[in-house]
């Protein structure tokens, strides 16, 4: 059985996320981008709704929701401002490494203190994103060229066979950043930074990466949905050669294809999230969903600008932001190539006939 209908509880959650995103985030998009942070009142509102602990276990005061809820919420938040969505979430994908590898203990020690600390950020980077001299000892030296943050309270470095956490000794050097500026942009440097904890396990590390990819895919789908939607409505208003530009077939077909591409990416994401919610085995699906979202971003991001012509290039309109942000989102977690590689290897292990199927899943 495969179920993509959110159900009443999740619909309520989506409504809440949508209202919050549209009422609180959307009107402040450019402000957040230039301030490199989200307004303090908005941060408080976010915590108050309980979004910060969305996936934490109930024992730790969380809502104990799963990847499907996360995909839905992230889509709504990112449809307003993906950068703000990252800035607002104190735990982000780092929580998956903590939960999968370190369990409730690790969440208690590393995640809980951040929940109520205003503006706190936990970050997850993959080992491949880091330039580290030595990652096996209890002190780390090296750097991470870019993270979407100006402040780092906890850094979790995820490798294929485990993870380690750093809390102190992280030097943050801010960068201009390309997209996601509402969350900040920095290079991180460590010179013998102490490792606060180290966990091992290939299977949980793989699951954590899968969850992280679903998280980012949700943000991508939201950003791209809005890019497609904004250019669609613009194309109905703007006229050229005596009719709305949307009524020139070349543009109508482009808009239709943008819309279909976002739908396709969303369906893959929901299928993968649904699988992840039912336990392990869906890691390749999550990798695939991320790849698709990134591919769609290369199509929908720039074409969102194209539909608006010269106006799209100007920062008076948000489409250039969607183009930058969707591009930046595709660069996290070691990028798309690693995901292609993992999904490809999983497929190569299968025997024909390949089922491609959720139907045979658990």
């Amino acid at each position, binding site marked *: 059985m495969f179920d993509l209908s959110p159900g009443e509880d999740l619909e309520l959650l989506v409504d809440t996320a949508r209202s919050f995103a549209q009422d609180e985030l959307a009107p402040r998009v450019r402000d957040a981008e230039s301030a490199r942070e989200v307004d303090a009142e908005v941060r408080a509102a976010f915590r108050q709704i309980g979004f910060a602990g969305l996936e934490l276990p109930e024992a730790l005061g969380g809502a104990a929701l799963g990847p499907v809820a996360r995909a839905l919420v992230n889509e709504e938040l990112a449809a307003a401002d993906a950068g703000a969505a990252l800035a607002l979430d104190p735990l982000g994908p780092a929580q998956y490494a903590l939960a999968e590898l370190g369990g409730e203990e690790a969440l208690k020690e590393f995640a809980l203190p951040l929940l109520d600390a205003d503006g706190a950020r936990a970050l997850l980077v993959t080992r491949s994103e880091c330039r580290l001299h030595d990652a096996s000892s209890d002190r780390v030296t090296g750097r991470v060229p870019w993270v979407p943050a100006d402040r780092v309270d906890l850094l979790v470095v995820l490798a294929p066979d485990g993870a380690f956490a750093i809390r102190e000794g992280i030097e943050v050097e801010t960068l201009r950043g390309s997209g996601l500026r509402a969350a900040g942009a920095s290079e991180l440097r460590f010179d013998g930074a102490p490792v606060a904890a180290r966990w091992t396990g290939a299977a949980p590390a793989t699951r954590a990466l899968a969850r992280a990819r679903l998280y980012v895919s949700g943000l991508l789908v939201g950003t791209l949905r809005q890019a497609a939607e904004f250019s669609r409505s613009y194309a109905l208003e703007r006229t050229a050669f005596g009719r709305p530009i949307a009524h020139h*077939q070349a543009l109508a077909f482009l808009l239709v294809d943008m819309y279909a591409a976002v739908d396709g990416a969303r369906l*893959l994401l929901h299928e993968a999230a649904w699988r992840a919610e039912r336990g392990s085995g869906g890691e390749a699906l999550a990798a695939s969903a991320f790849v698709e979202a990134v591919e769609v971003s290369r199509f929908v991001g720039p074409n969102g600008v194209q539909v608006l012509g010269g106006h799209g290039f100007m920062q008076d309109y948000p489409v250039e932001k969607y183009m930058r942000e969707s591009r930046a989102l595709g660069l996290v977690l070691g990028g798309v190539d690693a995901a292609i590689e993992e999904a490809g290897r999983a497929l190569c292990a299968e025997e024909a006939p390949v089922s491609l199927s959720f139907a045979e899943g658990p």
Partner: protein
Amino acid sequence: MEFNIDKAMRERLEETRERGRREIRPIGLEADRLGRPIPPDDPYFAMLIARGEGRSRWPGPAGRPKTAGTGGANKSSARATRSVVMHLLLAEESAYWDRGVGVANPGPGMPEPNVISMGTDEQKERFLSRFLEPDKPRWACFAMTEPGAGSDVAGIRTLARKDGDGWILNGAKCFIGNASRSDWILVWATVDPEAGRAGHRAFVVEHGTPGLGGFKIEKKMGLKAYESTSFTLEDCRVPAGNLLGGEERYQSRAGFKSAMGTFNAGRPMIAANSVGIGRAALDEALTFARDHDLLGDPRVRDRLEQSARKLRQARLLYLRAGWMVDAGKPNVLEASMSKAIAATIAADVTALGMEMLGGVGARGDHLIEKLYRDVKAMDIVEGTGQIQRVIMGRHLVQLPRD
């Protein structure tokens, strides 16, 4: 959106897979090699009929006992539980083995939904009852396309002229699946070429009607297992009772709407067929790559990953469109989307497969090459990819009709 794939469904998929391997694939390959459709008297078709296939979905005249022979009883209970989603998954599996053979199968086929939705009780009885317990393989077909009008259906020129208590048809149709072997043909004609769609009428023309002839089976690039046939209507006289639904039906635009309804229901089906063909190509590519130690090449793995991901997406798109029908939700946008996207995805997958097999694909004797030819039609039949985008454009940006 929930798809229940229960045990019964799984068994039916498994059964189709078994038949596909044993029967559908070999007979499709043979038709391709010989370059001709499976002959109507092929024992394969007789076997299907004996097995209880090739029957009408129409339940039969009111009051007809439901148990007419053991095979019939089984079939009709299976039919009762059949959802669109299930139908689509079975169509995907069948197309995996050979899409052309599936179309060649006997039965009332494409025009059946028109007859069921538009026909009078008397017409259903007259044209569909022979498909309830067919004594032999029987076909029916749907004839809209003409040499001068395909996408632009409003432009058909086959003329219907009232003549006493009947009609006289004059014109030509082309590319019509199974036409020369059909018991009857649902011919779309116009009473007034200037009136566009409002002038359209559908006639059931029985095989052997004087004036119906000139059957010419086209030579196609692929899908050779079934015939695509051109024919002519020359002063072909059809009784008034063969005007589908009777004259009142056409006072509104309902006549044309119903034809489009057929296409609408068919789009996710073509998408499912596409996924089936694409999946066959993916399996060929994967097996070839493994047998030839190519899986170590990252470019090969990337192509495989892309193929699998896109096919999975195409499947989700058609399942969504089918699920909407089952749930009674209007699905025009989603049906068009599934068809437009799945057809090109499947074509890409077969093309990538050809690339992976290299010269072996170019030899012309490998399944991957047949799939590459077969799949192209998926972006053409039942509304081209462009026409699907026109339909989506109407929904999304109110694209005007002219």
